[in-house]
């Protein structure tokens, strides 16, 4: 129990599912975090296409609801909020753009320049400009954390960097896209063709209207790039990844795999030799990588600890917010 509280003021830039999830978990966990870690988390600003709101005393629930409802859009820009409203941590949760990294890239640079720590779930800027951003953060004496960008709630970056510190990591392979895992699991279990299961996944919100990035393996590849750069110290880009998606997988193939004792999963694979590959692979049924539904999983191969496998929910606002929250708390403990 800490008696002396440190107030940590937070801005949330990008207020969609994940941004709302972050606000929600901060509200839910505020007291517990205050008593356990001695830090008082306070959301002082939110920026979104819907508008920008700020209150240095902490935003009220009513103000947040009004923003979500499209009322009370405020008269500031997001960049002004990042620059001019005093706070310690900028949480960047805008959608990923793999090509340009924007708008997240500008948000992150602006926040670091203004002396804020940055915690993000946005894959684009981290995959595209990892080295530049880390150098900028170091120059400004601030931290840039991005656990939520890979594997959602599943801890992988901090697991390797903190808990497995001292280990040499030789490879990481796993399922990093819940949509593909759901589709392949359903196809195999229910004997339903790809197109059918994809439609079903879209109807229940597991796949997006344009599922290309997921099913073609792009999303997995971007996450691999983040792992390659952050865990393996590479300077990799998306174009360095060999990418094959799941759209060609047939029911017959799943059946043949089953007969031979395997399942088919979309596996992202990065190793210390610089191999970066996303492809459907045969996974032995008794392998820990054989997880079902929308779950994500990663097996980290290390020189001292051997193989470590983590399994967790890869998507969902609260799950992603869990990773954001642990990054925020990690900044102060």
């Amino acid at each position, binding site marked *: 129990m800490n008696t002396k509280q440190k107030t940590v003021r937070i801005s949330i830039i990008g207020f969609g599912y994940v941004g709302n999830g972050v606000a929600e978990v901060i509200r839910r966990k505020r007291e517990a975090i205050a008593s356990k870690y001695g830090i008082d988390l306070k959301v002082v600003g939110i920026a979104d296409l819907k508008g920008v709101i700020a209150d240095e005393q902490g935003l009220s629930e009513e103000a947040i609801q009004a923003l979500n409802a499209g009322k009370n859009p405020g008269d500031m820009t997001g960049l002004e909020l990042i620059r001019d409203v005093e706070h310690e941590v900028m949480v960047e949760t805008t959608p990923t753009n793999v090509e340009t990294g924007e708008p997240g890239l500008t948000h992150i640079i602006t926040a670091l320049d203004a002396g804020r720590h940055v915690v993000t779930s946005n894959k684009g800027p981290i995959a595209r400009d990892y080295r530049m951003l880390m150098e900028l953060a170091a120059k400004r004496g601030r931290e840039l954390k991005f656990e939520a960008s890979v594997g959602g709630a599943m801890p992988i970056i901090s697991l390797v960097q903190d808990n497995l510190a001292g280990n040499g990591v030789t490879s990481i392979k796993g399922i990093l896209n819940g949509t593909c895992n759901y589709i392949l699991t359903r196809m195999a279990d229910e004997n339903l063709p790809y197109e059918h299961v994809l439609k079903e996944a879209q109807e229940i919100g597991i796949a997006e209207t344009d599922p290309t990035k997921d099913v073609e393996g792009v999303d997995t590849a971007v996450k691999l790039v983040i792992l390659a750069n952050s865990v393996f110290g590479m300077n990799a880009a998306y174009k360095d990844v060999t990418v094959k998606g799941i759209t060609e997988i*047939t029911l017959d193939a799943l*059946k043949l795999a089953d007969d031979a004792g395997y399942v*088919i999963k979309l596996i992202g694979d990065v190793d210390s030799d610089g191999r970066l590959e996303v492809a459907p692979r045969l996974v*032995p049924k008794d392998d820990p990588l054989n997880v079902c539904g929308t779950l994500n999983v990663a097996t980290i191969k290390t020189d001292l600890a051997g193989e470590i496998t983590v399994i967790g929910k890869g998507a969902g606002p609260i799950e992603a917010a869990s990773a954001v929250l642990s990054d925020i708390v990690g900044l102060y403990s």
Partner: protein
Amino acid sequence: MKVSMSIELKDIPGQLVLALQPISDFGGNIRSVVHHRDKKTPSGRIPLQLVLEIEERNLSVLVDRLKERGVNVVRIGEERLMDSMVVLLIGHIVHSDIRETIDSIDSTGFAEVVELSLSMPGVDLKSSASVTISAVGTEELNDALAILEAAAEKKGIMVIASI
């Protein structure tokens, strides 16, 4: 470990027992013996192909003992076709001549296609196959996979390899 061994015996009575006795002395378990009487070496010796299971630490003493007994040990290896993997193929497998693809692996001498299951849903639809490849070792198995992948890529066939 499972070991394959090629040895050569003098063509006089009693040699087979002479060669096999030390194996059981060192706790080895013979899995297979092939006696090639028809393939005498130029020096008139008879080749013998052995597969046995033996503790790794006993292997070199076994070899020494065999040599003491006048048995030529010409090759020792972990058993031939020790390693195998299942690979799936998706595409127009039959139209694009799967025979040729199999031959490209079988002709390496270090790897073979040992099993093939094919599923053909319809004339114009893509078929799927599971192929089991065995090879003398892990490296050779990966070489065989590379050969298969190269052949498949030319034919527009998707290869799903094991992790």
